[in-house]
């Protein structure tokens, strides 16, 4: 276990405390923010470490401590704000290699009275954690999953989700294709269970927006040699054969692990754009994203971690910032008060989208505009103009209240 405090804490804290002590007037929370009566706000990070299967390239080395690094950057932001509110933020880090170790660490933290968790674990393990009786009054902010079942039949009152679900990602792309009038889609799911779930989300979304599945054709070729010498010839032959005789406007590929999706663009028989896991990608965060002040976070993240920020990092960042927002707005470090506020309609998160981000009360999902970007540029942001909703246009993305399978009680 590692307990992390913001590294610059002591120095900046000292400086700020000098200022605050001298002014003799604390406006916020009426709490005199002296070093000796700082209120502690301990957060706990729990993750199952998974070895990256993505091959390293010069352009994109596999991100280290993905998700956690975002949480750390947000912790330093909470800490800076905490200097002025008399709150001393910390993040206990439990990155464990097995399900059992994750559960043990989680139980131990609960036994120590911790209530505020940021988690990065697969869906089945998340359910095991959320269902522990002692976790009933805790809040688990799911920083990294996109699993629809966790927002549906398997939703839990003590679990909320920061990143978009697969259904939201699918709607992000399909709304754009609808606007463009690219209506005939060649859907190419990969072999993994996650790819099947993503493909299901695309199928559901195509039905929702009345787009046509020109063909639904699973990818079976094992593309081991793309980056070996002359490997591109084999890829070109394979993708050409794969797309021969099919008539469609756009090829949508579901390959969450990134095994083959990048092999498809420019190799298709007909000249057609690629979207999904390559080409035009729906995502929560992208290194090309600069709008609404995002540049500041991109630079801050890069400076602190030495690498570019990913969607999972953004999930970790939003989770820790959500706790930060709750503490500042309620003037409280009491977990029950903070959790109550996060569940309330008053909660709003500013997260570089212009819009105020709020949680859907019926399934604990954060509403958010979602990016569509390729590797070099932001192409669009959904919801697209014209997709209307009686409550929030952000609810045109993903599973809406009338259709939810989540019945929180």
């Amino acid at each position: 276990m590692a307990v992390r405090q913001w590294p610059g804490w002591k120095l900046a804290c000292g400086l700020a405390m000098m200022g605050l002590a001298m002014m003799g007037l604390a406006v916020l929370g009426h709490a005199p923010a002296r070093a000796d009566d700082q209120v502690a706000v301990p957060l706990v990070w729990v993750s199952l470490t998974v070895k990256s299967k993505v091959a390293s390239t010069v352009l994109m080395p596999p991100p280290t401590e993905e998700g956690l690094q975002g949480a750390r950057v947000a912790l330093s932001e909470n800490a800076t704000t905490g200097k002025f509110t008399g709150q001393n933020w910390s993040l206990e880090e439990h990155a464990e290699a097995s399900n059992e170790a994750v559960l043990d660490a989680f139980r131990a933290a609960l036994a120590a009275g911790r209530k505020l968790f940021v988690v990065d674990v697969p869906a089945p393990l998340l359910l095991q954690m959320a269902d522990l009786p002692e976790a009933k009054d805790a809040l688990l902010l799911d920083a990294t999953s996109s699993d629809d079942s966790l927002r549906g039949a398997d939703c839990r009152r003590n679990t909320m989700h920061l990143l978009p679900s697969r259904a939201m990602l699918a709607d992000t792309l399909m709304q754009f294709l609808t606007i463009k009038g690219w209506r005939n889609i060649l859907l190419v799911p990969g072999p993994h269970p996650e790819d099947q779930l993503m493909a299901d989300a695309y199928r559901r979304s195509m039905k929702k927006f009345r787009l046509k599945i020109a063909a639904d054709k699973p990818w079976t070729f094992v593309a081991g040699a793309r980056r070996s010498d002359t490997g591109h010839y084999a890829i070109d032959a394979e993708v050409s054969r794969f797309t021969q005789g099919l008539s469609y406007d756009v090829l949508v590929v579901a390959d969450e692990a990134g095994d083959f999706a990048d092999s498809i663009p420019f190799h298709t028989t007909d000249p057609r754009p690629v979207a999904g896991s390559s080409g035009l990608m729906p995502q929560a965060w992208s290194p090309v994203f600069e709008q609404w002040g995002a540049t500041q976070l991109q630079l801050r993240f890069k400076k602190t971690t030495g690498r570019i920020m990913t969607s999972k990092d953004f999930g970790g960042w939003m989770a820790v910032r959500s706790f930060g927002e709750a503490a500042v707005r309620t003037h409280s470090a009491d977990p029950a008060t903070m959790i109550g506020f996060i569940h309330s309609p008053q909660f709003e998160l500013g997260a570089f989208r212009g819009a105020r981000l709020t949680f859907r009360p019926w399934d604990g999902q954060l509403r958010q505009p979602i990016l569509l970007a390729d590797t070099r540029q932001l192409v669009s942001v959904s919801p697209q103009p014209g997709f209307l909703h009686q409550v929030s246009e952000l609810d045109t993305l993903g599973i809406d209240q009338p259709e939810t399978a989540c019945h929180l009680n």
Partner: protein
Amino acid sequence: MSPQLILRAGAFAAALLTAAPAFADRLFVSNEKDNTITVVDEATLKIIATIPVGARPRGIVLSKDGKSLFICASDSDEVEELDLATLKVVRTLESGPDPENFDISLDGKTLFVALENDSTVGFLDVASGKTVKAVPVGVEPEGMAVSPDGKTVVDTSETTSMAHFIDIASGDVTANVLVDSRPRRATWTPDGKFVWVTSEVGGNVAVIDAVSHEVVHKIAFEIPGVTKDQIEPVSMLITPEGNTAFVALGPANRVAVVNAKTYAVEKYLLVGQRVWNLAFSRDGSKVYTTNGISNDLSVIDVAARKVTKSIPVGGLPWGVVVAP
């Protein structure tokens, strides 16, 4: 004195008395994407010069003697001084990393610089070009405003959602006022009694009592046909007599005209896209706006409350300053 000099002096005096156009002011616009400053003749609204400056120029402010323009060259991590007579960058000042925006002390000796990446406000000594003090504030400081009495500077920190009141003499933070999400800018009322703070995500203006540091009012905006999320208030101007305020609403592409006494929104003026910063002409009859997405500058007639003209400037125009 030689006859020639007397003649010149006489002509100068005559020109001062009669012809405003000969001494028309100039508008200086920082273009964030082009790394230039566009100079516009105020009388004709024609571009007279485009000056290359440091990377990502954003905040600009006039020196108190009116002879120089200070420029935050954000990606060059420095402040530049542009000589307004020669239109050349004559000096760089060591501001620290990523200066975004600043204001100048009443005596003109100090620049208060928002150092966005460091979460500090730097006190930059103009004479030496060195930062003499760094005050830790909240995350992503941006707005900077010196009080009319010159004793206090207010910073707004976007991610911390606070306005920090800093005593200039001591460098102490004297108050931290929580406002709505992502506060962008601060502006003092001319009587020094209130500070207005815009919140980008909150979509409103908080009016803070400068003595009690309480938020006494929030000004909200509603525009038919414009979604709430597009209303992101940024820069503000308040007329010298303190009656009327102009609030730039960012991607709503409008400037709100607000009664500064009753806080009622009286009119929305359609300007260019992503309206960001504002400046009064020196006689107060015009307001100039920079419009980041349409790459232009709009001219508002203050008395008529009408947009009379827009002129193209550089790429992603950010700040605007009126100078002799």
